[in-house]
C-alpha cells in the first residue's frame, strides 16, 4: 500500500488518538510542573484624620490579568513531585532517621498518601493476578471434563462476573457484605460477633476488594484456558496414557507446558489491567481504607477544589509505572512481529 493511500485510510484514527491520547499525556506533563497563580496582593494605606493604617487587599484586576496571560499557572519545576502528597523525599528521609526499626519505618511511610496508594495498587496486582489465573485454570479443567452439551450454559454463566460493569458488579458484592446483607450476616455468624462490620476495618476492606478482583477477572482466564485446552494435542495425551501416566502427570507434563505461552500472555495483560484498579474502590466506598493510584487521581480531581496539578503529577508517576509494567509486553511483541 502506498504512503498516500495509507495516510488517507489511517488519518481518522490517527487524529483521534493524537488529539485525545497523545496530547493529554503531554498536557498532564506540563500541568504537573505548574501550579495555579496565587492571588496578587497589594498593600494599601488607609489614612484617616487619626492616623494611617496599612492593610493588604487582593487586587482582582491584576489577578485576572495574570491568569489570562499565563493560564497554565506558575512554573514550579519538580516541586509537586517531591511534596508530601507525592514522592515526599524529605519526609522519607526524616522517617528513615527517626524510626527505630524497619516496621516503624514502614508504618511511617504508609502514612504518606502516595505510598499508601502505591502499596494497595501493587498488593492488588500481585494477589489478584495469580489467584484469578489459577481459579480460571481449575474451572477450565473442570468444564473441559463434563459432557459437551452442558458446557454452553456454564460458559454463559461464568462470563457474567467479567462482562458486568465493574462499578455495578462491585456494588452488588458490596451490598451483600453489608452488615445487614446476606454475606455480612453469614460472616458475623461464623465468627460469632454480631457487631462485626467489614467496612470499618482496613484489612477486611482490602480482603473484600481482593475477593472482588478475583471474582471479576477469573472468567477471562477461564475462557482463555478453555480455548487453549481445545488445542492440546490429543495424540500426546493418548501416548502418555499408554505409557501409564496418571491424570495428574498428564496435566503436569503435557497440558501445562502446552498452555505456558497463554499463561505468560495473561499475566502480562492482567498485571497491566489490575494496576489500573479503580471502580471497586468507588463502589465499596473504601477511599478511607484503601486507595489505588487511579483513585488517588480521582479524589484529587473531584471535590470542591480541583487539585489539577497534584492529579497531573500522580498521573505522570502512574504512567511511568505503566511503562515499566508494559516493557515485557513490548519486548514480546517486538520479538513476535518486529523482526520481519
Amino acid at each position, binding site marked *: *500500500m502506498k504512503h498516500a*493511500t*495509507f495516510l488517507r*485510510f*489511517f488519518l*481518522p*484514527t*490517527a487524529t*483521534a*488518538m493524537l488529539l*485525545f*491520547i497523545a496530547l*493529554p*499525556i503531554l*498536557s*498532564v506533563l506540563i*500541568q504537573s510542573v505548574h501550579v495555579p497563580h496565587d492571588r496578587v496582593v497589594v498593600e494599601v494605606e488607609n489614612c484617616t484624620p487619626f492616623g494611617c493604617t496599612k492593610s493588604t487587599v487582593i487586587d482582582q484586576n491584576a489577578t485576572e490579568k495574570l491568569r489570562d496571560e499565563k*493560564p497554565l499557572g506558575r512554573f514550579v519545576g519538580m516541586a509537586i513531585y517531591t511534596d508530601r502528597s507525592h514522592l515526599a523525599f524529605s519526609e522519607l528521609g526524616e522517617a528513615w532517621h527517626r524510626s527505630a526499626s524497619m516496621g516503624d519505618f514502614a508504618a511511617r511511610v504508609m502514612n504518606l498518601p502516595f505510598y499508601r496508594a502505591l502499596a494497595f495498587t501493587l498488593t492488588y496486582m500481585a494477589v489478584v493476578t495469580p489467584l484469578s489465573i489459577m481459579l480460571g485454570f481449575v*474451572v477450565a479443567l*473442570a468444564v473441559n*471434563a*463434563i459432557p459437551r452439551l452442558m458446557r*454452553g450454559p456454564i*460458559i454463559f*454463566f461464568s*462470563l*457474567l462476573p467479567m462482562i458486568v*460493569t465493574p*462499578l455495578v458488579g462491585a456494588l*452488588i458484592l458490596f*451490598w*451483600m457484605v453489608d452488615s*445487614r446483607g446476606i454475606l455480612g*450476616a453469614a460472616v458475623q455468624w461464623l465468627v460469632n460477633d454480631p457487631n462485626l462490620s467489614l467496612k470499618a476495618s482496613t484489612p477486611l476492606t482490602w480482603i473484600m476488594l481482593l475477593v472482588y478482583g478475583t471474582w471479576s477477572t477469573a472468567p477471562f482466564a477461564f*475462557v*482463555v484456558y478453555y*480455548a*487453549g485446552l481445545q*488445542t492440546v494435542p490429543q495424540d500426546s495425551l493418548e501416548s502418555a*496414557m499408554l505409557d501409564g501416566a496418571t*491424570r495428574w502427570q498428564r496435566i503436569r507434563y503435557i497440558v501445562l507446558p502446552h498452555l505456558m505461552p497463554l499463561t505468560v500472555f495473561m499475566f502480562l495483560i492482567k498485571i497491566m489491567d489490575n494496576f*489500573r484498579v479503580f471502580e471497586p474502590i468507588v463502589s465499596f*466506598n473504601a477511599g478511607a481504607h484503601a486507595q489505588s*493510584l487511579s483513585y488517588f*487521581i480521582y479524589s*484529587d*480531581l473531584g471535590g470542591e477544589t480541583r487539585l*489539577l496539578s497534584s492529579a497531573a503529577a500522580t*498521573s505522570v508517576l*502512574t*504512567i511511568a509505572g*505503566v*511503562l515499566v509494567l*508494559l516493557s515485557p*509486553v*513490548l519486548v514480546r511483541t*517486538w520479538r513476535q*512481529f*518486529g523482526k*520481519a
Partner: protein
Amino acid sequence: MASGSQKRSATLNLVLSGFLILWLVVAIFPFAWTFWGSFKVEGDFFSKASWQNALFGPLTRLEHGNAFTGAGYHGAWVKEEFWRAALNSFVVVVCVVVISLTFGTLGGYALSRSTYRYAFWLLLMALVFRAMPPLTLVSGYLLPFYQWNLWGHLPTAIIVLVAINQPFTLWMLTAFFRNIPKDLDESARVDGCTPFQAFRHVIIPVMWPGVITTGLFSFLLAYNDFVVTSMLLSKQNQTMIPKIASFLGTTQTEGNVMFAVSSVVSVTAPLFLLVMFFQRQIVSGLTAGAVKG
C-alpha cells in the same frame, strides 16, 4: 478427552462437579440475589433482624400489601429520572460503536495491508496507548476542556471514548484483516479499482464477522465506562453508570438505596441479553489475541 472421561473414577467426578457447582453459585448467586431483592423495600433487602427477610419480604408485605414491589424501579426511573440517563447512555453507546468501528476498520485495513516498517511502530504505539489508565488521560483533558467550554457535553465524551477505544479496535481489526487473503483486494486493483473501491466492494462484504466481534467490545467499553463519563459530563448529560454512583452519594442518607439497587438491575439486564445472544463472538474475541499470539 472423550477416551479419558470413561476412565475417570467416581470420586474424581464428584469432586469435579462439586467444584463446578460451587463456582456457578459464586458466579450467579450475587446477580440472582440482587434481582430478587430489588423488588423488596430497604428494610427487607438490608435486614437487621434476619437475612430471610430479603427472601420473603415481611416489611414489603406490610408496606405494599404484596411480597414484591416495583417501588424501587418507579423511584429510580420516574422520580429520579433514570430514563434520561438511559437515553444519554443509548446515544453515547451507539455513537461510540459506530464511530470507532468506522475509524477502526479504515485504520486496521491500512495497517494490515501496509508492508512498511511504520505500520509495526504504529501498532506498538497503539499498545502503549491501550495501557494508559483512563484517569491519567482525564486529568489531562479537564483544564483544556474547561478553557474551551467543551466540558459537559455528550459529543465530548463520545469522541474521548472513541479515542480511548481506538488502540484496542485497531489491534483486533488488524489481526482480523490479515486473515482476509490479500489476493482478494489485489485482484480488484488489477481490474482497475481505486484503493477505496477495492475496500468498498471487496473487503466490506466479507468483514462483518470481525467487525461484529470488535463492535461488541466497543459496546462494552462505552456502556461500562465510569471514568470518562463521570468526569466529563454535566449532571444533565449523565449516563447510567455515573447516575448510579450519584444515587449512592445523595440518597443513601434518605434511605432510598433501593433506587440504586433497582437501577443496578436495570443496567445489568441488557448485558445479560448481550452475552446470551453473542456468547460465541465474545468468547472468540477474548481468545483471539491469546490463543493465536
